[in-house]
């Protein structure tokens, strides 16, 4: 099932079973969504529950908050995470704090969906990965979906939750086809073990998961290095238990993410593992991440700016070599 269709299915099921669920965002209605995630919902549920909004991001989430306060369960779409920079006040100062400031009197059953990441030559204002902006905020939950199963179940779970969730998708995944099945009690707070391995624990999420899996196959085939691959799914909170278990076995940690390395989500994973499992580590953690630059338009430069399967492979290989693997 296409990743896009899995998201669409989750929205459809939620709206079908719960009349309190409404969808709002730019072009989500009549147009069917910029990435067609909401396709068909407008016709099926009508303009009152599938709401086209003006280009006013801060107020899209702001109105969704108001709807949630009244007992609706809005799912807002911000067309891309780049535009979420206009929403940070509603995310950080409102969505994340209203419940706490009210001593628990307010409830915000609210989901904000957005795609992020490098697609193809969309240039620096349309290519960002900004998960750390949300994952650093107490009061928010942040989920990510790397395939159709986590897309469907993760989004559905987010909609069912009575707390605010930022739901991150990746632009390049929408038209990818993944095996799909309904999973009993899928838990978005548990990281997923996508590949078992002995030598190295590789932590990732969103689209990078697939690049990592490819690189790890090569490492196994060509170099006999066996990697355990973990898909975080939840970026706030991070399921460190699952990471710790794996690192206690492999004694080596690699974190792969698309955002610039400095202060990206992997910084927390690397730091936390060093602080908690210092005496288990056989090698310093390795972070493979984006370069410290905006994403350039030129394709060659664009690919240089982010991890690729080839780069992940070669960096893990040389790092393993230089640390006695």
């Amino acid at each position, binding site marked *: 099932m296409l990743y896009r269709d899995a998201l669409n299915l989750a929205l459809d099921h939620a709206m079908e079973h719960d009349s309190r669920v409404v969808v709002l965002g730019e072009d989500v209605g009549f147009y069917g969504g910029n990435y067609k995630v909401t396709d068909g919902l407008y016709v099926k549920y009508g303009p009152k529950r599938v709401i086209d*909004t003006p280009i*006013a991001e801060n107020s899209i989430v*702001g109105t969704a908050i108001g709807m949630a306060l*009244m007992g609706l369960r809005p799912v807002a779409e911000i067309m891309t995470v780049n535009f979420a920079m206009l929403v940070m006040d509603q995310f950080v100062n409102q969505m994340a704090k209203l419940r706490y400031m009210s001593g*628990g009197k307010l409830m915000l059953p609210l989901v904000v969906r957005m795609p992020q990441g490098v697609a193809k030559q969309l240039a620096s204002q349309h290519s960002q990965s900004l998960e750390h902006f949300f994952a650093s905020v107490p009061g928010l939950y942040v989920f990510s979906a790397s395939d159709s199963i986590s897309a469907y179940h993760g989004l559905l779970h987010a909609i*069912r939750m009575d707390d605010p969730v930022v739901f991150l998708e990746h632009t390049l995944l929408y038209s990818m086809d993944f095996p799909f099945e309904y999973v009993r009690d899928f838990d978005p707070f548990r990281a997923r073990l996508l590949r078992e391995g002995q030598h190295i624990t590789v932590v990732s999420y969103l689209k990078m998961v697939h690049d990592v899996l490819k690189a790890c196959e090569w490492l196994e085939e060509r170099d006999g290095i066996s990697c355990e691959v973990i898909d975080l799914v939840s970026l706030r909170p991070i399921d460190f238990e699952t990471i710790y278990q794996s690192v206690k076995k492999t004694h080596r940690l690699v974190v792969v993410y698309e955002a610039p390395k400095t202060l990206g989500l992997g910084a927390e994973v690397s730091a936390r593992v060093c602080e908690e499992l210092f005496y288990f580590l056989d090698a310093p953690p390795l972070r493979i991440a984006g370069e410290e630059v905006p994403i350039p338009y030129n394709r060659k430069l664009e690919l240089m700016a982010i991890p690729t399967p080839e780069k992940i492979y070669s960096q893990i290989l040389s790092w393993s070599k230089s640390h006695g693997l």
Partner: protein
Amino acid sequence: MSQTLAEKFYYLMKLGREFEIRCKEEYLKGNISGFLHLAIGEEAVHVGAVVGFGKGDLFCPYREHVLALARGIDPKLIMAELFGKATGVSKGKGGSMHLYEPKMDFYGGNAIVAAHLPHAVGAAYARKLMGEKAGVLCIFGDGATNNGTFFEAINMASLWEVPVLFLCENNYYAIGTHISRSSALKELYLKARDYMPAEVVDGMDVFAVYEAVVRAKQYIEEYGKPYFIEAYTYRFEGHSMADKGDYRSPREIEMFRKRDPINLLVERSLREGWLTEEQIRLIDQKVEAVVEEAVEFALSSPEPSEEELYTDLYCGVCSDVIP
């Protein structure tokens, strides 16, 4: 009618005034801390609006003590919140700028200028979708009307046809900056008049505010559409306890103090025979007692326990409607 109203107005305005004068004292004593924004001078807007609006959701800025009192939230719980006590309306976690009581449709203060306007629009959208009649009252200052969020909310409210009454209390200042140095339009209703009916009212006359709000409420509920009121008023104190307000000339302050909304109400009520000196004395006594009781309650209330630091961040449950 006018008689019962006059009595109600006087009680609530006097309660607001005395409550906040006491807040000042308690702040200076160190019992209240943080930003404390007083509405002294603006009671006619707050009381006239809340009473006139009646049933419906309230979304307010950080200057919301009198609005909360007028909505009927127990003064004890408000004072306890200002004291940061566990018994406070927000468990001592919110303070002066963050009073909430959803049970009374009070969605509280917000310390980010204009951020609550889209909340009000979304709330009204939800109420209408759920087929409920009562609209939403959203209060904000003159300075807020220069923020983009204000216009986004105005446009969406009008576009989506939702029942919000936007009430702008124009007290001419945003902290130390006079409206003439922050807004190209000095008549703020102009900013909304193409989107919805917009009118101006004397914010020092509680009856005028009340009547305008009653009319507006009828309109938004009958048509399910937004309405805008600009109320001219003035804050007699500084922006907050951290501000002396001395950027305003004594003459200007004097001029507005001459139109103290409480005095105006008293004079008129006596003239019209709606209230007697005796009634006023009795109300004043009651107010004094209520405020005293609130302070005693706050003083004698316990601090939140240490565990409270970590509670109320997430509710951690799921709605089970979806299979």
